[in-house]
C-alpha cells in the first residue's frame, strides 16, 4: 500500500477540519479528491505533505509515518500546493536546480534531470527565462516539474489546474496522464470534476471533514446518486405505456413528454431487474424503441450531495 491514512483527525479549537479520515491507496493509483470549500481536502494534503500535524491518527506514505518520520516522508512525496509563489530573480533552470539541491541531489544529477523535467512539462524553450516572466500555466507546470525533481513515488497536487485557461488545463491534464503512465501514485484535488473522472482511477468525496464516498467513478455515482433516472421512448401509445410503468413498484416520479413520446422516471431496481423490465414491457406490447439511463455526471452528483455549496 502506497498511501495509508488511518483515522486522521484535525481540530482547530472546537472546529473539526478533518474527522477520522481513513483511506488506502495502492501504488500507481490516481486518486481524485472532491469536496466543497473547507471540506478538508487541503488539510488532508497538508498533513500528508508534513506541513501540518494531525490532532489524532496517522498517515503512512510507502510505510513511513508522517507524524514520526516526516523527513523520510518528504523523500517520498512531491507536493504542489493550491497557491504558491516563485522566486522572481531565478531562471527556470535555476529554480529547479535550487529545489534539486534542497532534496540533496548532486550537481551532476541535477544537470541531467533538469532538461528532462523541462521537456516533460514542455518548458524547454523557457529554460533560461526568469520564472516571474512565465505565464500562470507555465508556472504551474514548472512547479509540477519541481515536485518531480527527486523522483517521488507519490504526488500530492492540490488544485493543479486552478486558475488556468482551457488550453493550459488540457496541457496539465496531458502531463498528469503521462505521469500516471510512469506509475506514480497521484493524489489530486480539482474542481474540474469531469476531468477528474477522466483521469482518476479512484475518487473520494469529502464533506465536512468526513470521507462520504470512495471508489471508482461509476461506484461513486452509484453510491451517491441513489435512484437511476430512466428515459423510455415509445413510437406511440404513450398513455398506455405510462399506465404500464406506473404499476411497477420500483418506479416512481413518472414525467411525460407527449411531444417527444418520452417517459422519464426514477427506477430503484438493479441491473438484472432493469433488463427484465424492458423484456416485460416489450412482451406487453409497449412499442418501446429506446430505453436509456439518464447520464448524471460527477458534477451533478457532487452538487447534489454538497447541497449546492460552492465547489472549490
Amino acid at each position: 500500500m502506497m498511501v495509508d491514512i488511518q483515522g486522521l483527525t484535525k481540530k482547530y479549537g472546537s472546529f473539526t477540519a478533518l474527522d477520522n479520515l481513513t483511506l488506502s491507496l495502492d501504488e500507481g493509483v490516481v486518486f481524485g479528491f472532491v469536496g466543497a470549500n473547507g471540506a478538508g481536502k487541503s488539510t488532508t494534503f497538508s498533513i500528508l505533505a508534513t506541513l501540518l500535524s494531525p490532532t489524532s491518527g496517522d498517515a503512512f506514505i510507502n510505510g513511513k509515518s508522517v507524524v514520526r518520520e516526516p523527513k523520510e516522508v518528504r523523500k517520498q512525496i512531491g507536493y504542489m500546493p493550491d497557491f504558491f509563489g516563485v522566486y522572481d530573480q531565478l531562471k527556470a533552470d535555476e529554480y529547479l536546480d535550487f529545489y534539486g539541491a534542497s532534496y540533496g541531489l548532486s550537481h551532476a544529477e541535477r544537470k541531467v534531470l533538469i532538461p528532462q523535467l523541462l521537456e516533460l512539462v514542455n518548458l524547454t524553450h523557457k529554460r533560461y527565462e526568469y520564472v516571474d516572466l512565465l505565464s500562470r500555466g507555465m508556472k504551474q507546470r514548472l512547479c509540477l516539474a519541481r515536485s518531480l525533481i527527486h523522483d517521488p513515488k507519490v504526488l500530492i497536487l492540490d488544485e493543479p489546474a486552478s486558475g488556468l485557461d482551457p488550453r493550459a488545463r488540457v496541457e496539465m491534464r496531458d502531463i498528469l496522464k503521462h505521469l500516471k503512465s510512469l506509475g506514480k501514485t497521484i493524489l489530486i484535488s480539482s474542481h474540474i470534476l469531469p476531468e477528474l473522472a477522466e483521469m482518476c482511477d479512484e475518487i473520494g468525496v469529502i464533506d465536512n471533514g468526513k470521507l462520504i464516498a470512495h471508489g471508482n467513478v461509476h461506484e461513486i455515482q452509484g453510491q451517491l446518486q441513489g435512484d437511476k433516472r430512466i428515459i423510455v421512448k415509445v413510437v406511440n401509445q404513450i398513455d398506455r405505456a405510462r399506465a404500464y410503468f406506473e404499476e411497477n413498484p420500483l418506479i416512481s416520479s413518472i414525467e411525460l413528454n407527449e411531444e417527444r413520446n418520452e417517459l422519464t422516471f426514477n427506477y430503484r431496481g438493479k441491473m438484472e431487474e432493469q433488463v427484465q423490465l424492458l423484456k416485460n414491457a416489450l412482451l406487453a406490447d409497449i412499442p418501446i424503441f429506446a430505453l436509456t439511463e439518464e447520464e448524471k455526471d460527477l458534477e451533478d452528483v457532487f452538487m447534489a450531495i454538497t447541497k449546492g455549496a460552492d465547489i472549490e
Partner: protein
Amino acid sequence: MMERFSNPVLLKELKLRFRAFKSFSGLMFYLAVLCIFVAGFLLIYTQFSGTGFFKPSDSFTMFAVLSILQMGLVMFITPGLTAGAISTEREKQTLNILLTTTQSSTQIILGKLASSVAFLILMLVAGLPLYSLVFLFGGVSPSQFIIIFLFYFLTLIAIGSIGIMFSTITKKTIVSMIATYGAMIFLGGITAFFFFIGMSMEQMAVHSGNVQNVTPFSPITYFWVSINPGALLITTLYPEMGNALESVVGISLPIWIVYLIFYIFITVICLFIAIRKLRANMKTNR
C-alpha cells in the same frame, strides 16, 4: 565533497540578493555615507583648523568616529536584511514548498542568516578602502582594527539572529521589522539609559552620605553597560574609559567578556527558537 557542506538556501539567497538592484543601491548608500563623512572630517581638520596637516591623534579620532558611525549603520541595516528572511517567504507563498523539501529547519535558518551576514560582511569589506586612509595617517594599530571588526561580526550575527527569530515567529514582515528594530533600540539606547539611571542613583547614594568610604558595587548598572554596543566600542577604542567605568560600578571584569557571553547567548537562543518554530505546525520539528 563540497556539495555535502553546501547550503542550497544560502546559495539561492546570495544569488537572489546580488541580482536585486536594492542590494547595490544599499551598498552605494552605505559607502556614500562613509565617503561624505571621511571627506568632511579631513576637510574640517585640514582646511578649517588652519593647520593644513593631519596629526596621528586626529587620525585616531577619525577612526573612532568612523567605527561608531559604521556600528550605527550595521545596527540600522541588519534588521532590514534579516527581519524579513522567513516572513517574506511566507508572504510570497514559497515557504510551504521549501518546508516540504528534505532540508532541515537548521539548514534553512542558518542559510538565511549566513546570506544576510555575508552581505553585511561585504559592506564592511567594501568600506575598508576608506578605513585604509586611517592607516595612511597613522595612530591606529592593526590589532585595534581587527578587534573592532570582530566586535562588528559578533554584533551583526546576534542582531541577525534576533531578526530571523522574529521573522519566524511573526506572520508579517512589517511586524517582524518593528520587533527587531525595537530590540535594537533596547540594546543600543535603553540599556544606555538604564546605565545612566543606575549611575545617577549610585552618585546620589554617595552624595547622600550613607555609603561614604564604601567601594561602589552595582552589578545591574554594570550589566546594562556591558551589553551596550556603543559602550563596548568606546571602551575598546579608549581603554581609559574602561578604567573609569570600573571605578563607577566597582567591577573589574572587562565588559567585553560579558558582551561576548551575552551576545553569544542571544544568538544561540534566537536561532534555537527560530529552528523550533519554523515547522511550528509539526509535532516532530525536523
